[in-house]
């Protein structure tokens, strides 16, 4: 062979082998084994209405289902709460359904508690174990009790749980989760009715720490209303002022931001009240049990100059806001979680809400609407939570049954939940994922995902009449799971006796149908198709009766404690809410609206403060409080008061699966005593100190020049 031919041949061989290396494997085409009974046509989708229960707002959803698989979630245009819109958490429901870390079968603990070692068991065995523990609780017998801990429940499920509890005997129901609208019990409006803000028709809106675009009560509903308030009316563009120490997404949407020192926001409300008072007829106040002279005395000290001093906000800015509130009608004032969580929260809340009364904005267009609920809510207060924990700690509880709550994550260590858990002989957890708390359970019962469940979603805010969203199981359950209500029904059947008699329905779905469309299948189908029962017109509003005000205290001076000179604010993240969304990668990848940070936690710190402490953007810092320390990357954020630092809640899980574990930190570790204002487990601000550790903060932001490409930092 000539050398040239050899070279040609070897060149071709090299190219050939390189090409073969490029050859891709073909994809697979997987047919059905047996086609679904409803004759699904591949490629053609059906849309089913259901509801989202990822937060108490209860939005209506439409789910695209083709070939028996849920593929996309959209807002239900017929649902009065969200009118076709949806937040990212609702969009991510499909990821909850198909999540690789979902619990698939009942599990029994096989290693030490918390080790995460479980063996599969059958449902029969699981039910028998549970029934054996419930039997001795029958009424009349003396002995220990059991606790069932769920988020606040509504409607049929609340009623079913109550019947089940009565049947079993000494079963105490605790209905508590962080950020449940339970805090509204402190409200001036006095009852736990439905509340709705008529934002779309108002001309001037003032929010005191209510982040209604991020997370407050019913964010999709209020977002929609806010858009209409700004742009829908041909001649007016509603104006908006935000009061609070941190520039949240809501604050950033305002015309004016009054960055008041945390805990002093209410003094601005007092300055407003002082100027409004002369306009108000005494009989209006008398009807609410208030005395004009008394109120005048209460508000007397709060002149704009004094308030400017107290809040650290420029007097001209306060004056502008006060003047607008005095001049513009209709005007509306909203108070929210960031205000109520302060130590003086309940009184501050009422002081702010008083403004609506003075403005004549209660139950009027552009104001706040109050409606009596169909059935009272069953949410437990923080005090009830603490009582229950004391019962557990004292060893007076034989069984703890948890459903849909994650107290290991959501309660600061000071509550002693972990210690309480150690005193309970049997911990049973009914959950979709293994999480921080389920890890410690002895028996794990897999729950249906949202898209597999039947039920009701009854909003407690954002509606003016009894609204019931119907949850529809849009796909067949993927795993060997049971929905929580059906678990209770199965348990009642196993137990028989009083419980069996109290809970006699065959299935939750059947009971639901019975409740809403007894003996009328056509009506039932109609309700399912439209997504629930929506009031045709608003219910008559509930008038304000006697109100009681209280006098808020001023917070301690900012530099009261030289060891911990800064105030840490922990806010619910818009992606994860109280933290349970952290398991879903779409939500992890969702850039935080203000910082664009993804897949982690960060500390927002004012550039002035950072410069003083020698901290640069992205540095690793240590945040220390009386209770402990955490390490976070610093995010230099001009939208925060210099003496305040802030971090979102939601990350820092242990045991919540591959996408959440070990990402960011849980800032609740920094809270020591079980104290907070207004029913929150964590005070609105925690005194901390911040110190620079190194430059390796490893902050990943979508807005970074290298953006999400810094995957080496994410480890995905």
């Amino acid at each position, binding site marked *: 062979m000539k050398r040239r031919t050899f*070279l*040609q041949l*070897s*060149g071709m061989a*090299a*190219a050939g082998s*390189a*090409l073969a290396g*490029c*050859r*891709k*494997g*073909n*994809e*697979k*085409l*997987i*047919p*059905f*084994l*047996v*086609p679904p009974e409803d004759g699904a*046509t*591949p*490629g*053609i989708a059906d849309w089913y209405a259901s509801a989202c229960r990822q937060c108490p707002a209860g939005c209506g959803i439409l789910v695209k289902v083709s070939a028996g698989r849920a593929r996309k979630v959209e807002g239900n245009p017929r649902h009065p709460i969200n009118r076709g819109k949806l937040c990212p958490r609702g969009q991510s429901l499909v990821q909850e359904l198909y999540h690789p870390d979902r619990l698939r079968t009942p599990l029994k603990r096989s290693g030490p508690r918390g080790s995460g070692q479980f063996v599969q068991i059958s449902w029969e065995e699981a039910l028998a174990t549970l029934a054996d523990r419930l039997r001795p609780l029958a009424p009349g017998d003396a002995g220990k009790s059991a606790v069932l801990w769920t988020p606040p429940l509504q409607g049929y499920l609340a009623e079913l749980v109550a019947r089940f509890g009565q049947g079993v005997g000494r079963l105490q129901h605790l209905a508590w989760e962080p950020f449940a609208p339970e805090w509204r019990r402190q409200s001036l409006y006095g009852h736990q009715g439905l509340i709705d803000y008529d934002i779309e028709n108002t001309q001037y809106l003032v929010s005191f720490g209510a982040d209604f675009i991020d997370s407050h009560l019913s964010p999709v509903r209020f977002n929609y209303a806010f858009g209409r308030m700004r742009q829908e009316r041909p001649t007016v563009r509603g104006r908006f002022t935000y009061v609070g120490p941190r520039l949240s997404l809501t604050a950033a949407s305002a015309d004016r931001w009054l960055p008041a020192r945390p805990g002093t926001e209410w003094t601005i409300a007092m300055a407003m009240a002082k100027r409004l008072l002369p306009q108000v007829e005494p009989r209006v106040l008398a009807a609410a049990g208030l005395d004009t002279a008394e109120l005048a005395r209460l508000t007397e000290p709060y002149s704009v100059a004094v308030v400017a001093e107290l809040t650290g906000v420029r007097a001209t800015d306060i004056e502008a806001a006060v003047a607008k509130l005095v001049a513009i009608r209709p005007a509306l004032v909203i108070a929210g979680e960031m205000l109520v969580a302060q130590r003086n929260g309940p009184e501050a809340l009422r002081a702010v809400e008083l403004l609506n009364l003075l403005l004549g904005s209660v139950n009027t267009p552009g104001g706040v609407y109050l409606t009596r609920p169909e059935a009272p809510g069953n949410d437990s207060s923080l005090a009830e939570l603490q009582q229950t924990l004391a019962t557990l700690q004292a060893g007076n509880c034989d069984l703890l049954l948890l459903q849909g709550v994650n107290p290991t994550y959501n309660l600061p260590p000071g509550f002693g939940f972990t210690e309480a858990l150690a005193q309970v002989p049997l911990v049973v957890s009914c959950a979709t994922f293994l999480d921080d708390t389920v890890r410690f359970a002895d028996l794990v019962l897999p729950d249906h995902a949202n898209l597999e469940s039947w039920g009701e979603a009854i909003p407690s805010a954002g509606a003016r009449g009894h609204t019931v969203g119907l949850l529809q199981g849009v796909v067949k359950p993927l795993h060997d799971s049971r929905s929580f209500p059906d678990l209770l029904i199965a348990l009642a059947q196993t137990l028989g006796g009083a419980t069996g008699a109290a809970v006699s329905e065959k299935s939750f779905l059947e009971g639901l149908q019975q409740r809403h469309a007894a003996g009328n299948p056509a009506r039932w189908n109609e309700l399912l198709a439209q997504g629930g029962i929506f009031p045709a017109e608003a219910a008559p509003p509930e008038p304000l009766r006697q109100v009681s005000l209280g006098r808020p205290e001023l917070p301690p001076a900012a530099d009261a404690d030289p060891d911990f000179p800064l105030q840490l604010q922990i806010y619910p993240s818009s992606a994860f809410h109280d933290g349970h969304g952290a398991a879903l990668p779409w939500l992890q990848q969702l850039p935080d609206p203000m910082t664009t940070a993804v897949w982690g936690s960060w500390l927002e710190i004012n550039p002035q403060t950072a410069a003083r402490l020698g901290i640069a953007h992205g540095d690793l810092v240590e945040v220390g409080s009386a209770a402990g320390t955490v390490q976070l990357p610093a995010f230099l954020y001009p939208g925060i008061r210099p003496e305040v630092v802030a971090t979102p809640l939601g990350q820092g899980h242990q045991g919540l699966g591959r996408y959440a574990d070990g990402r960011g930190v849980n800032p609740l570790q920094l809270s020591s005593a079980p104290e907070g204002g207004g029913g929150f487990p964590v005070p609105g601000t925690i005194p901390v100190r911040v110190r620079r550790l190194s430059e390796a903060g490893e902050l990943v932001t979508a807005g970074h020049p290298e953006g999400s490409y810094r995957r080496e930092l994410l480890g995905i």
Partner: protein
Amino acid sequence: MKKKLLIAILLLPLLAAVIGLVVLYHLPLDLEDRAPSQPIAFSHRQHVGEMAIDCRFCHRSVDVSAIAGIPDVDLCRACHLFIAVDRPEITRLAEFWQQNQPIPWERLYRIPDHTYFPHMMHLNAGLECGGCHGAVETMAVTRRVVATKMGWCLNCHREHGASIDCWTCHR
């Protein structure tokens, strides 16, 4: 001089190979297997050619949906409960059924992401299956006869006077 020439001659193919690879990397080449071996040696020649079974008997949603549909295992089995039950390939089919497993067929035609290709519109416009899929009635081993690239789509759309607006396919 001669030495330099020699080095140049030796380096040239190397250079050519590198350039070739770079070009290959950027060219939209058709790299997927055109006639992969399937988990069951299904013959279109036998089913379509010899038995004259209509395409729609198995690919049932082709004229109503974007997706033609691959027959479910139950459908294969419905006939083969009685027909040719002892052939080795049919035994394999029975095994899949008994093990509750769908048959993992190798995909031949793939439409790139962000592209919408509705089978039913093409059929309802009067196109023949064979126009794209070739004469499957002659294929004992089914093979892909075209690379589903944009140029190929556009040519056909132009020929038939169909829309070539971006939004027609990329939606």
